[in-house]
């Protein structure tokens, strides 16, 4: 089956694959060839695309997946490949959590939403390691 994993400004995977594991909004979801047509909202987590030789792991930050006629399109709200080391990813998560705590204290709903999005992204990114 054909799998594409894209954000609005970049392509992270485009090609044939044997299986895809995605983090849907309510839990992990595996897609194999011959899957029924599906539209699902994605949560924050690691997507694993198995092309038969290796498994490509990409952190996906929300978005949608559409499966139709053995074509899997992952439309991510944002994505990242593994980069740097686990320690700096952990530090980023700590910082995001601190920012969230500060935003909660300040009490602005938009700032809280923004900071919690950052925490979710940092968590998904850390899960790559």
């Amino acid at each position: 089956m054909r799998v594409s994993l894209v954000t609005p400004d970049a392509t992270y995977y485009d090609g044939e694959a044997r299986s895809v594991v995605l983090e849907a909004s309510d839990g992990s979801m595996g897609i194999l060839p011959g899957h029924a047509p599906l539209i699902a909202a994605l949560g924050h987590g690691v997507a694993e695309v198995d092309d038969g030789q290796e498994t490509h792991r990409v952190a996906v930050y929300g978005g949608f997946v559409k499966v139709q006629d053995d074509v899997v399109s992952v439309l991510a709200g944002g994505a990242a490949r593994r980069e740097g080391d686990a320690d700096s990813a952990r530090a980023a998560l700590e910082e995001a959590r601190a920012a969230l705590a500060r935003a909660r204290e300040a009490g602005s709903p938009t700032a809280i939403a923004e900071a919690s999005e950052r925490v979710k992204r940092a968590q998904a990114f850390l899960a790559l390691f």
Partner: protein
Amino acid sequence: MGNLRDIKRRIKSVQNTTKITRTMELIATAKSQACMNRIRGALPYFHALDEIAGQAQQAAGEGELEHPLLEQREVRRVAILVVVANRGLCGGYNTNCLRLARDHRERLLAEGKEVLLHPSGKKGINWLKFNRIPYEGDGYTQFEDKPAFAEVEAVADELIGAFLSGAVDRVDVVYTHYFSAGRQAPVVETVLPLAGLEGDADTASSEQSGGGARVANFIIEPNPRAILDTLFPLQAKLHLFRVYLEAATAEQIYRRVAMKNATDNGIEVGKTLKMDYNRARQSQITNEILEVLGGAEALA
């Protein structure tokens, strides 16, 4: 005629300027190509999202569309995002767009609405300062020829936040729309409230009529409602992302044209100066011959 050395210096300076404008023209050509490719690259994403929107809406059933971002309120305060460039030397790109923004603002003020301006691009910020028009925040200057989605998202989040909190009742954007490689013009569009899912019904129905037996019955996880809830903010962000992509492309095309005109002009001026130079040189030689002849005669 001027003296020879003066003309020579002017020829040199025109040639140097022409070299610069030609290089800028080439750079702008390359960048505009890259920008157009980015628009093309983003299109499948937009289409796929539209299709998801259409399917989810169908599954949710008509008339059930309710979302804070769709809410049409009585418009008292309007935020206008003005997207122009950080740099000049691009013909009428900035001026045309800013003029439209000014007209739009004045029209809204005449209707008794309050206007909050959000300039993007140094040229816009400076123009507002120069005309003593107040604006919100510091303006955005981070966008160059390759606007990143994450950067646009930050701007979008701010505007969406303002809309949701009720600080503004409408969000408009003024930018240079990329109609085609040959035509770009400034336009005003409304970003929020979202115009609903226009066009999606078409894609969904054309798929049904065209597909015949292979109308897909999508499994929708977790439910259509939840899909639409996350989809609407993303649509607003993508709208702005498209705005920035198109504005960047239009800027490069404008710059290419402006620099092409400058180069052509420079070559023309160079030719005229060269002719002046030759004429001056010739008349100087003639003068010298006459002097020599005169001197010889005096001696004879």
